[in-house]
């Protein structure tokens, strides 16, 4: 009886985990059809389509460690006041709900950049919130990377 109960629990846990695996992407999916918000999704498939040697590169920065482990990038942008406020509030609630950790906060020349991360065995995500005077950008990097892979992007 115990064994069966454990097996059932394991199956349920596996189903829940697989549903959560894509949670980072899904949390921001609602912006795909929201007014005054532009939404771009680039999948891993599109990276691979561009060819093996086409990994994005920035001089003196090791990008491969992260790009090889990415499963998708979401780019969300808005320059409309109400949408900007909603976007910022939503990001704050997603960050709190999914227990993201603040990696870095940079404030310079009126721009504010917050970088959060959430590392998991099955799915990790880095969320970058860029607040400018009249624009808000949210970039979500999803994949199976570690924090070390992200930090390798620093010189």
């Amino acid at each position: 009886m115990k064994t069966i109960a454990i097996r059932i629990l394991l199956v349920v846990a596996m189903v829940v985990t697989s549903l959560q695996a894509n949670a980072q992407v899904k949390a921001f999916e609602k912006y795909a059809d929201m007014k005054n918000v532009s939404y771009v999704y680039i999948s891993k498939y599109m990276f691979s389509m561009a060819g093996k040697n086409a990994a994005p590169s920035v001089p003196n920065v090791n990008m491969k460690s992260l790009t090889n482990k990415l499963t998708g990038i979401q780019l969300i942008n808005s320059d409309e006041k109400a949408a900007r406020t909603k976007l910022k509030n939503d990001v704050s609630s997603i960050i709190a709900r999914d227990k993201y950790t603040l990696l870095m906060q940079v404030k310079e020349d009126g721009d504010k950049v917050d970088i959060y991360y959430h590392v998991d065995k099955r799915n990790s995500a880095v969320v970058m919130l860029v607040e400018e005077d009249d624009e808000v950008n949210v970039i979500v990097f999803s994949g199976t990377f570690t924090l070390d892979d992200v930090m390798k992007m620093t010189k």
Partner: protein
Amino acid sequence: MDKLNWKELEQIPIPEGLEERLSAKIDEWERAEEQKKAKRLMFPKPMRYAAIAACIALVFGVGYYFLSQKDPVNLAEQDTYQDPVVAQREAEKALNLLAYNLNKGMGQLEKAKAISDRTETTLNKQLNILK
């Protein structure tokens, strides 16, 4: 009193075929009990729990299937760009921005470290003079 009762009882004539009828009834009860036992063995407890779990899984599976059928095209999970080169360029921009901001933050950290090192050196110098 008891002896008298027994004697009286012994004198009462036993109806014809009563023993056979009783025996047949007992046999019938036994058979019913055996059938019940057999039924219980056919579905032991763990099997019943497994069957319940399977039913729940089936209900959830069918429900999930039909719910997902309602929204066959999820725009958010579709690639925005059909051209891989454009997608690549946009991905590069995003990664570039991440790298730029990470390095900006780390640059400030380096500056802070340099100031801290200088302060420590000056402090040590002053402490040596005082000695």
